[in-house]
């Protein structure tokens, strides 16, 4: 499995965040900052997973609605969404998540490849770089889903969105 090899070197520090009750993580090296204040400006007729843009100190940054991307339904009205600004292949994109929890040091050895389809998660394994087990506080282990950011952002639909300029 090539996925684990690649990630075992790259992923050491990860930013953990929650989305519909599950724990996800992104490599910290790709994260530029976290925005909790920004107001999203909706773009007419935009696809729901990329609904608009925000102002990041004068730059216009598109927002990726991760819940929509993973078909997790809309966020409850009362959660104040947080935007994780990431930079991938020269593009700056804001990823909207439910909340950001922690920065963790992951032992590359504890990262397992994503299992075949039909696991607990709703998203296909195409965007999963691996799974990590976290020792829980009450003795129960919990699972952390490591996202493959490059895949997520070079996904066909997004590429199509980018090249849709005429």
């Amino acid at each position: 499995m090539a996925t684990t090899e690649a990630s075992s070197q790259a992923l050491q520090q990860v930013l953990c965040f929650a989305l519909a009750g599950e724990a996800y993580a992104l490599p910290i090296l790709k994260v530029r900052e976290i925005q909790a204040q920004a107001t999203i400006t909706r773009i007419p007729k935009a696809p729901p997973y990329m609904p608009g843009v925000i102002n990041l100190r004068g730059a216009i940054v598109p927002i990726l609605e991760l819940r929509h991307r993973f078909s997790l339904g809309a966020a409850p009205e009362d959660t104040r969404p947080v935007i994780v600004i990431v930079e991938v292949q020269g593009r700056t994109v804001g990823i909207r998540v439910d909340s950001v929890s922690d920065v963790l040091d992951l032992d590359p050895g504890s990262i397992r490849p994503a299992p075949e389809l039909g696991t607990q998660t709703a998203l296909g394994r195409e965007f999963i770089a691996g799974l990590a087990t976290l020792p829980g506080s009450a003795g129960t282990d919990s699972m952390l889903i490591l996202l493959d950011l490059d895949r997520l952002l070079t996904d066909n639909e997004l590429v199509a969105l980018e090249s849709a300029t005429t």
Partner: protein
Amino acid sequence: MSDPMAQFRTAFFEEATELADSMEATLLSLDLQAVEVEDLHTLFRAAHSIKGNAGTFGFPAIASFTHQLESTLEPVRQGQRAMTSDLRELILQGVDLIRSHLHHARHDEPLPEKEQQAQTLLVVKLKEGKDAPAAAPAPAAVEVKAPPAGSSSAHRAGTGFSIRFEAPQDAFRRGVNLERLFRDLAKLGTMRSWPDLSHLPVLDRLDPEDCHLAWDIRLETAHPMMDVEEVFEFVAEGDNLRIQSLPAEGAVPPLGDYLQVEANVSPADIREALAKQKPLGEILVDMGKVKPEAVGKALEQQAKKRTQSEASTVRVATEKIDRLVNLVGELVITQAMLAQASLQSNSMQGEEQMNAALLQLDRQTRELQERVMGIRMVPVDMVFSRFPRMVHELGRQLGKDVELTMEGQATELDKTFIEMLVDPLTHLVRNSVDHGMEEKESRLQSGKPTIGTIALRASSRGGHIYIEIKDDGRGLNRDKILQKALDRGILPPGSHPSDEELHLLIFEPGFSTVEQVSDLSGRGVGMDVVRQNVRALGGRIEVESQMGKGTTIRLVLPLTLAILDGLTVRVADETYVFPLASVLESFQCNDADVQTVKGDREVISLRGEFIPVVRLQRLLALGSCQNTGRALLVLVESEGRRAAMAVDELLGQQQVVIKSLETHYKRVEGISGATILGDGRVALILDVSGLMRLEAGAATVEA
């Protein structure tokens, strides 16, 4: 093609013809009252190139004749012989002879006897005036601009370059001929060089195949830096070559410069001596006036500033800078006023002072913005100036008498606009001469003056720049365009477009009403590219034409790319910006005033005209509209069409800085860009014509 040389010859003929054309154009454009030295160089280079290529391709007769023109032009460009109207005539004749040479050589014929004689006579005449000095008081003679009075040499002392060149270590092993290099350099002007042997290693470590030489060179020349760099092309490796302009005319050169020239002190020695001077920072540290860290920091800042200012430069008129400096001064005062007022913000007086200062600040910020943007503005003449010769030349080639008039050359345009307008305007003017103008005979028959007129006009009105190309030619043929549009499927059968819509079709890709594409307009950009460029600049095209009377094509452009006067509105819970230039008015109306036609299209009658109503909230998919019984409508106009856009609230007028949505997101139909509002939110700028297209599209799909 059996002879492989034939294709090289064809290339030669083409290039030489172009060069001859450019010579003619340059000659025609010369203002004899104030000859531009650069034009003289252009003439010389063209003659030089024709000569060189003719020699290469085995046309000695052309080469030797062009050589005569070249040697006539050499003293002229050096400022030693005046460009008089007589001389211009002679060289124009020369250009004609070159053309004739080329024509006959192409057909493998010798130059006819008659033209041989003309050539001999011309060569004699060219030599006749040779000794006339530049400043000769001949009535028609006008002095060439470049050398100021009192300067006898062709290269004004003080213009040129100081060069530091360290030869690459492998120069010899790469077969570099340094001697040749210096010879080439010396050809550019007056050169003085000081070898620097300080890098030579001690003898026993010296590899004779390594090169350790360096030079300091002072080159007085009128050539641009590019020519100097070209000499060093094969030996420049990053930092081993430093070329600096000698202090410009008017500037006072440093003492070392004088010492170089007057006392032949080498630049290396001057550097050494200067190194012995202690830097200001060091002296201050020694005096205990300042800490070393502070000096380091200051130097860093200075260095940063330096690299910034070297990166890119713009020429700005001094008066523009003076005004900016004054403005900054005013701003400082305002700032002080505000600070003062904030201390007494509780008192009535403080508040008044605060309000006054804020008003001032508002005005000053606006002016500062305008003036800073003004730095980017250049006169439209930068594009226009090329057209007189182009029209003259085209007219000659096509046997049409065309007069070009120009107006408003001083109108200023954003620098990027100028660059993007060159091709479209060239195409439009070319098109006017080529297709718009009738032949002389048909002009006579239709009772028009034989001389056709093309008017180029630039003006700025109400936040827009208008550029007009107006000809008194044959005008657009309505029926022909309609037929073609139907044939090509550009219009659906049974269409009855308005004149305006029909005329704009000539800008559709692949649309040409001329059966035979002539070689003149056939090359370069097409009409669709004209429209594309104009649109890219946020502008639009208008066409007015009358059969037999002429055509006017008008480019309407925003003042600048970066800033837009906008009307901010609220639709649902989003804020949008209308370009103020496309807004005619806004008004409240009752829903009862809105009529529904063709099932779902809404229109409103305004002063007897039915205007489509566009529900922005629905069009932009912002959720369903709440029916309040009343509507707030913004009447907009674009590309000759009007629409009333329903919005929820008018928020105000403001200038917004345009940011591209495309580079960060993607192009969105109906949206031309984005901007950032005072509260930090992003607002989208509406593209009025895009919205109308969108609405029309939605209607046809539904219908």
